[in-house]
């Protein structure tokens, strides 16, 4: 005897099998009393299942649709800001700002550093004066840069 057509029985009962398969299952059922009995049980079971599953509690459909509409509206309102359509003027302004920042920032990044001028070199050399801050704070002659420039010499003369 061929294998039992277990998984074919439900499609057989529903008349879904192609003619050749249907014929094969029908022949098997004639020869196999167990499968025939199974098929009858399945038929009863499928008939009873609808009653066994039952019906859900009743629903007020108008209220159901009103709730659904509210939920749909709430969903629309909560669409993320990045997914919302943006006014054309706002989009264009944002794009312009981004473009300006990108071009200006790029130019700034690519510009070479300015060379140090001779005045700044002199000032940097003179900053050595500030190493003795207490002395500098007591001087009353700071108005004249020439005096400050000669301080080192004055100090050495005084010590010497």
């Amino acid at each position, binding site marked *: 005897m061929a294998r039992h057509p277990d998984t074919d029985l439900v499609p057989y009962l529903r008349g*879904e099998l192609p003619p050749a398969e249907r014929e094969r299952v029908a022949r098997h059922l004639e020869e196999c009393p167990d499968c025939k009995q199974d098929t009858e*049980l399945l038929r009863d079971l499928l008939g*009873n299942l609808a*009653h066994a599953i039952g019906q*859900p509690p009743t629903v007020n459909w108008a209220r159901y649709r009103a709730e*659904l509409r509210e939920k749909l509206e709430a969903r629309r309102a909560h669409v993320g800001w990045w997914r919302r359509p943006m006014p054309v003027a706002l989009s264009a302004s944002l794009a312009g700002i981004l473009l300006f920042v990108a071009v200006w920032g790029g130019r700034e990044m690519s510009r070479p550093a300015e060379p140090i001028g001779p005045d700044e070199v002199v000032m940097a050399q003179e900053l050595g004066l500030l190493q003795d801050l207490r002395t500098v704070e007591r001087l009353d002659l700071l108005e004249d840069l020439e005096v400050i420039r000669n301080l080192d010499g004055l100090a050495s003369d005084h010590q010497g």
Partner: protein
Amino acid sequence: MEPADEALCERVARRDEAAFDLLVSRYQERAYRLAWSILRNAEDARDVSQEAFIRLYETAGSFRGRSKFSTWFYRILVNLCLDHKRKHKWWKLWVRDDDDDRAETILDRQPAPVNDPVDKLSREETLKALGSAVDRLAPRQRAAVLLRVQEDMATYDIARVLKCSEATVRVHLHRALATLKKTVEKR
């Protein structure tokens, strides 16, 4: 002549509110009943079926018409139900609030009229046991059984809803019905 579901879905994709309302009216009872059969809780069934309609509204543009609208919509619904069950599984172990719904419906079930009260009681008990056994089936087996029994769907359509092969659906149904048969035979 009433417009076909598929044509309505195309209109929903173009944000036609009247077409959406019409589809909701056509499917609300079936969607709610199927969700309830899987979830066994009226409030959850209402929420999940409404969510399925919202998804329908949002994704109507992705319906290509390769399958029937009902199959496409049931796929959304069943997936939401199975997801809901998966997410709330741990919670249901603590709060069995779905028992109330089932108790009501068992009383409401209408067995075939019989004269013998013993037979009637026996039949009611058998149906009750059968209903409980359906609740204990694996989620995809249960979905396959419900789509077959409640929605009278063909194996081909169930396979499309559950996104599996027809052979897999046949196995789901065979195993589910074998389990349910044992429940009946015990009684």
